[in-house]
């Protein structure tokens, strides 16, 4: 039973659930964006967690970690590489979200998503 391992998994899942809850229930459109960012952080944590191996070290093979022992000494580098791009994409998407939200709220005179009838179908 590794406490660290399962605590991180629980934190990440909790952040995803709280973020989804916020996206589904909040009224202010900017706060929906904030909840989306929180869910994004949770997903990134969960992805990095999937590549974590207890008791190992960073995948950088300098003098501290000889290259011959790399297989038994480092964590999985693949999820880290994926998350690195995912974080940058996430903030670009958040910028697009904020711009569209600001324009919609200025056009309709309100930031309340219940009043944005033109977005409904």
């Amino acid at each position, binding site marked *: 039973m*590794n406490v660290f*391992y399962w605590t991180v*998994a629980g934190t990440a*899942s909790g952040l995803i*659930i709280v973020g*989804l*809850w916020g996206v*589904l*229930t909040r009224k202010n459109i900017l706060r929906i964006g904030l909840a989306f960012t929180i869910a994004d952080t949770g997903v990134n944590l969960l992805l990095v967690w*999937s*590549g*974590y*191996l*207890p008791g190992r070290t*960073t*995948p*950088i*093979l*300098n003098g501290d970690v000889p*290259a011959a022992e*790399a*297989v038994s000494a*480092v964590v*999985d*580098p*693949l*999820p*880290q*590489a994926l998350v*690195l*791009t995912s*974080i*940058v*994409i996430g903030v*670009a*998407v958040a*910028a*697009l979200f904020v*711009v*569209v939200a*600001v*324009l919609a709220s*200025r056009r309709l005179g309100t930031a309340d998503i219940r009043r944005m009838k033109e977005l409904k179908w």
Partner: protein
Amino acid sequence: MIRTLFVLLVLLVLAAAATSVIPHLKMRTELDGAGLEYARRGLEDTGSINLVTAVIVAYRGLDTLGEVVVLFSAATSVMLILSLFPLGRGPTDPSFIVAHTARVLPAPIMLLAVYFTTHSHLSPGGGFPGGTIMASAFLLVMLGSSSTPAGSKILPALEALSGTTFGLLGLWGTMTLGQFLNNRVIGIGNPGYLVSAGIIPLVSLAIGVKVASEFSGIFAAFRKSGGNR
């Protein structure tokens, strides 16, 4: 009422799906699959002692190119929307402390960003963090004034140049070794030194400048749409 029930239903279905996974989870203790191969052969294949950079730039370089395209389209959409619908109301002048900080600090931050970008194969860092730190330096210049910085006119050119460099470095591998973004086109040198790992530092620099110019462009568009004072 219906809304609340629907939200509860969605969250319950998600929670049930997550709960059904829990009994099958077990702690990973050994590398397997692609990660095992990257850890075993990464150093001799690419010459980069930072395996994460090796995966991003060399092994999964094509995916990184696609990711940069996604970033480009998001940033372009932001700039397009803001140039079509200006938003009025310019900023106030900065206070004494902010103005003087913004005069002194951008150069050290840019130095830090260049260090992270060019040493991506030796130490933590790489194109993406280096690029965001460069964008932070630009942002600091922007915070220290109430107008758009004069240098923001070359941002589109910088963006195009770095994107083209990335593509051409990839095509170089296709021409000589028959593999896109193969980093052995100029030899991998002696791992652990600054000039090593083939084209990885160059590609990292291209990615860094690309990311920096995208984010700086977003901030410049923000400031321009607010109008100068």
